């Protein structure tokens, strides 16, 4: 693994909203094609990190490099699955319209979708098991189907890095399975996937690398390296309970949303 070139490098990055810095001096590297789970307590800055990786939040310091070039130098090699509240579900678009948006970056803003674009869109929908919903309005779908539509869009984008903010929170079993299968598939295709999750078991069992955050980097490495008592205690503090037989419990309820109260500032 150490011989693979690092494809995503975060160097000493500080990220925040306005004057308030949420994440300080973050430095880590993700090798090409890795599966990375970002974990940490509510409000640790997971979504903030994602927003910086997507380029929505400017950095207060440091830099982010993709393939050795500054973030923004590549047009659409980062795909992002938005959280539910970031999308207007009553907008008049069909599922295939949404997936086609993933092709916009590559087809050019003035040209019409080519046959190849349509084919990519159809295959992406088939892969996510929503081909039969192609003509449905996005608003008519269930939450899980909507997420799969956005996953299909991300695949259609043919990204090098795929970011998913809490893809396993509040979705049905089918969607969870489809998402996990997709992670494996993308892994085989050398696409780097970065997700945030509260499910530490899932993170430990399905991901190569774990990034443990709490406003700063607490630990980064393989699941066995990161999920050690000291690290977890540092990250979760009082919500961690250590049992006598070595079992540890982390009490973390509710989907995160560290960013909610900052929204007004972001605009």
């Amino acid at each position, binding site marked *: 693994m150490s011989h693979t070139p690092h494809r995503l490098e975060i160097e000493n990055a500080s990220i925040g909203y306005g004057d308030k810095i949420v994440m300080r001096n973050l430095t880590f590297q993700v090798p090409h094609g890795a599966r990375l789970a970002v974990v940490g307590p509510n409000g640790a800055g997971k979504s903030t990190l994602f927003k910086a990786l997507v380029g929505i939040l400017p950095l207060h310091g440091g830099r982010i490099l993709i393939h050795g070039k500054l973030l923004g130098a590549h047009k659409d090699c980062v795909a992002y699955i938005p959280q539910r509240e970031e999308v207007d579900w009553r907008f008049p678009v069909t599922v295939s319209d949404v997936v086609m948006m993933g092709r*916009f970056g590559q087809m050019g803003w003035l040209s019409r979708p080519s046959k190849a674009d349509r084919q990519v869109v159809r295959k992406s929908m088939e892969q996510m098991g929503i081909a039969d919903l192609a003509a449905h309005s996005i608003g008519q779908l269930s939450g899980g189907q909507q997420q799969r539509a956005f996953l299909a869009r991300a695949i259609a984008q043919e990204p090098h890095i795929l970011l998913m903010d809490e893809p396993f929170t509040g979705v049905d079993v089918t969607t969870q399975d489809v998402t996990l299968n997709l992670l494996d598939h993308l892994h085989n295709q050398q696409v780097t996937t970065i997700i945030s999750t509260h499910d530490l078991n899932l993170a430990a069992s399905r991901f190569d690398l774990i990034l443990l955050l709490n406003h700063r980097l607490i630990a980064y490495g393989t699941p066995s390296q990161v999920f050690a008592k000291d690290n977890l205690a540092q990250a979760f503090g009082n919500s961690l309970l250590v049992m006598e037989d070595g079992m540890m419990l982390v009490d973390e309820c509710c989907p995160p949303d560290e960013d909610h109260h900052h929204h007004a500032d972001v605009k």
Partner: protein
Amino acid sequence: MNLILEPLAYQFMQRGLLASVIVGVLCAVMGTYVVLRGMAFLGDAMAHAILPGVAIAYLLRGNLLVGAGIAAVLVALSIGLFSRQGAVKEDTAIGIMFAAALSLGVALISSMQTYAVDLSHILFGNVLGVSASDLWLIAGLSFAILLTVGLLFKPFLVISFDPVLAATLRLPAELLRNLMLVLLALTVVVSLQTVGVSLAAAMLVTPAATAYLLTRRLWPMMLVSALIGALSSVIGLYLSYYLNIVSGSSIVLTATVFFLLSFLWKRMKSV
């Protein structure tokens, strides 16, 4: 047949009809963004905000459309400025500019001698007073706006539906949003003469809202909205001719009937 052809014997009626259809289509198309992006209040404010520009142009004996255009663009950009970086919320900025511009406009107009007639023309339109050069200006501006909307269909779709995707695709979202405001301002200016400032907002919202009820995709929504806008303009103008009522009102009321019909149809279908 005669009922339809008779009014067209007058040249001012021909020009009026053409102008209303163009404006009907233009407002309806821009209106889809107004409805989808929740900019109805902004459209209304913009329409009233052009009043001082019109009044100054009138006092200087300049072209009213040019005066309105300058005022509209100024107001659109100042709303952007005040609400930038969250100094005040956007709807607050709109409220302030709206009231200030309207007051300034009324103050200027009240200093004129022919106050009542002029004000009513500006507020409710004077479609039968469209001159040949006005018509050219309306047609030219409308064509330019519709062409821009057509060319930027995909970027506008993305910034409206999913701003985060717009960011990952490195779209200049701020620039596109300002451009959309300017296009909206110009649309309101163009509709000044046919429906007037107080009813322009209705032509922006009503046909598009009707189309929203009837369609599921953006492109068809624009087409249906344009069709309803054009039909409302034609039917409304004839009603105004035969019933001898203000054309702006009859056009807006016709569009409202379309909205009510589609609302009922949708209700019946879902039962």
